[in-house]
């Protein structure tokens, strides 16, 4: 898909995500907005996932390991036509299957339930190895947060993937420099993140996580990786797209008011 179209899709995902955070009373908006451009590229440019193949054993797979960005994923899957956007109205309501963190089997296209950090990469690695065993060539993309890289299990998975040369596995790290209660580089010595993944045996590259061309190009390279898994370190801004949310960690937990939703929409429409 043409880059300009992806940019429009990303804008629509942002607008709907902000609205949904307000109506569903669901937080983690900053974390959702930081990965919207990545989600748009993954679903509308990189992976072979659509309404017809969503249950096919040879489909590509995407796992949102940073499950707290579920809102952005729900909106993206609805935009992709995997389920009716009408369902989004139900999001966050008592008893709804669209909860703050994804529920297994809740909507088509949701490959794994996540929410506790440090689980998604291992699950994605298991899917990749299952593909190898069954002689399928599907790709598996896993989106992690930088705070998530605090978890030791991420690095267990990283070492094992490298040992197995799982070239069909891609990890994207949404490096927005914040975690729940502070700067991610101050809480744990994450930096230099790209070198860490390289040292763990992965092909790694750093991109501007809000530049559609750069993300698309990195994903293309990652999906053609040879002999090793591929890590994309996406430098992002938490709350990206709404000036009063950008790089302000209060939006990890804050829910926008109706007025703030309106202001956010105005800003996004002007971009």
């Amino acid at each position, binding site marked *: 898909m043409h880059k300009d179209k992806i940019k429009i899709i990303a804008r629509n995902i942002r607008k709907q995500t902000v609205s949904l955070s307000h109506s569903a009373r669901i937080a983690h908006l900053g974390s959702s907005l930081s990965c919207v451009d990545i989600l748009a590229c993954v679903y509308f440019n990189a992976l072979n996932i659509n309404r017809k193949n969503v249950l096919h*054993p040879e489909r590509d797979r995407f796992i949102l390991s940073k499950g707290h960005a579920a809102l952005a994923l729900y909106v993206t899957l609805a935009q992709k036509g995997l389920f009716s956007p009408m369902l989004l109205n139900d999001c966050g309501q008592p008893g709804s299957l669209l909860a703050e963190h994804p529920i*297994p*089997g809740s909507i088509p296209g949701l*490959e*794994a*339930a996540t*929410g*506790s950090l*440090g*689980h998604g*990469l*291992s*699950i*994605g*690695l*298991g*899917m*990749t*190895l*299952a*593909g*190898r*065993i*069954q002689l399928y060539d599907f790709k598996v993309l896993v989106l992690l947060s930088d705070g998530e890289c605090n978890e*030791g*299990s991420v690095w*267990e*998975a990283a*070492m*094992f993937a490298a*040992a*197995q040369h799982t070239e069909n596995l891609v990890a994207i790290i949404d490096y927005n420099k914040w975690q729940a209660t502070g700067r991610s580089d101050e809480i744990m010595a994450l930096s230099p993140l790209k070198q860490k993944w390289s040292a763990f045996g992965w092909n790694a590259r750093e991109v501007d996580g809000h530049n559609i061309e750069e993300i698309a190009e990195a994903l293309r390279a990652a999906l053609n990786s040879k002999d090793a898994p591929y890590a994309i370190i996406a430098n992002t801004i938490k709350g990206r797209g709404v000036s009063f949310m950008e790089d302000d960690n209060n939006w990890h937990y804050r829910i926008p008011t109706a007025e703030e939703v309106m202001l956010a929409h105005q800003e996004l429409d002007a971009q």
Partner: protein
Amino acid sequence: MRNAFAGELTKLASNNLKIVLLSGDMGNHLFDKYKVLFPERFYNCGVAESNMTGIAAGMALAGLKPVTYSIAPFITIRCLEQIKIDICYHNLPVVIIGTGAGLSYAGLGTTHQSCDDIAMLRVIPNISIVCPGDAMEVRGALRAALNHNGPVYLRLGKKDEPLIHKIVPVIEIGKSLIIKRGRNICLLSTGNLLPLAANAAENLTRLGISTQLVSFHTIKPLDETLLSDVFSSFQLVVTLEEHSRIGGLGGSVAEWLSEMPPQHSRFYRFALPDVFYKGAGDQNHVRDYFGITKSEIVQQVIKNYRNCLGSGDDLQNAVQ
């Protein structure tokens, strides 16, 4: 039990191409034959049980039937959240094999003892917990686990335990096996205490107390049909397990009893106390230390049976 598991899995894997064996850097030479026959369906996942458990979930989500293997404490509570979220929340057909359960590897120290695994796993929805009583039951339980469409924890002992069954019994998850029928008391044994329970049952019978022996291999789902039956027909029902008295078989039965109308039978739990064993010594030594011995079982059963009957004279009469 270990060797029976490896042998049976190798047999089953030739017919079921979905079976994948994941080992947490355990089972040196145990899987040599399996590895030669199915190299593409074996992964040594290293000393990284959390990752291995997540991998198993991913494989199951992609249509395979993974079996994870390590020493009981490391394959259960070390990676408990992966079992809970990745496997059980998704209700995936993964078989988790914990070897050396209870005090089997007591000689390796408290770190390698697993007397809390049943309690830790039992509260997680969707999981079945099966503790085979001998190597034959291991084979039957593995067949059942691999046919089961959901998570199963198989709790194994070590190797060279005495055999109770002559042939492989058909194991149905949640349905206990009556090893020997009796009239006065009923011993419900789970897992690797079965040979000891069998010896105790024999001893009690010789003393004139007609003793029924049950291999209560499945702790979850609980065999409520059998419990209803034995609690309404025996004077004393005793559970035996190499596990903490908290949250294991005895705990499960006590919970079940609390929700039932008063039962005919008295109930006694034979289990490990709520303490760590600190010291050297093998399984037999630690069993002795905690009173998990034939004579102690016989003594406790007689004492409790006497209480059921009310007086020593009745017991004498009953014994005669």
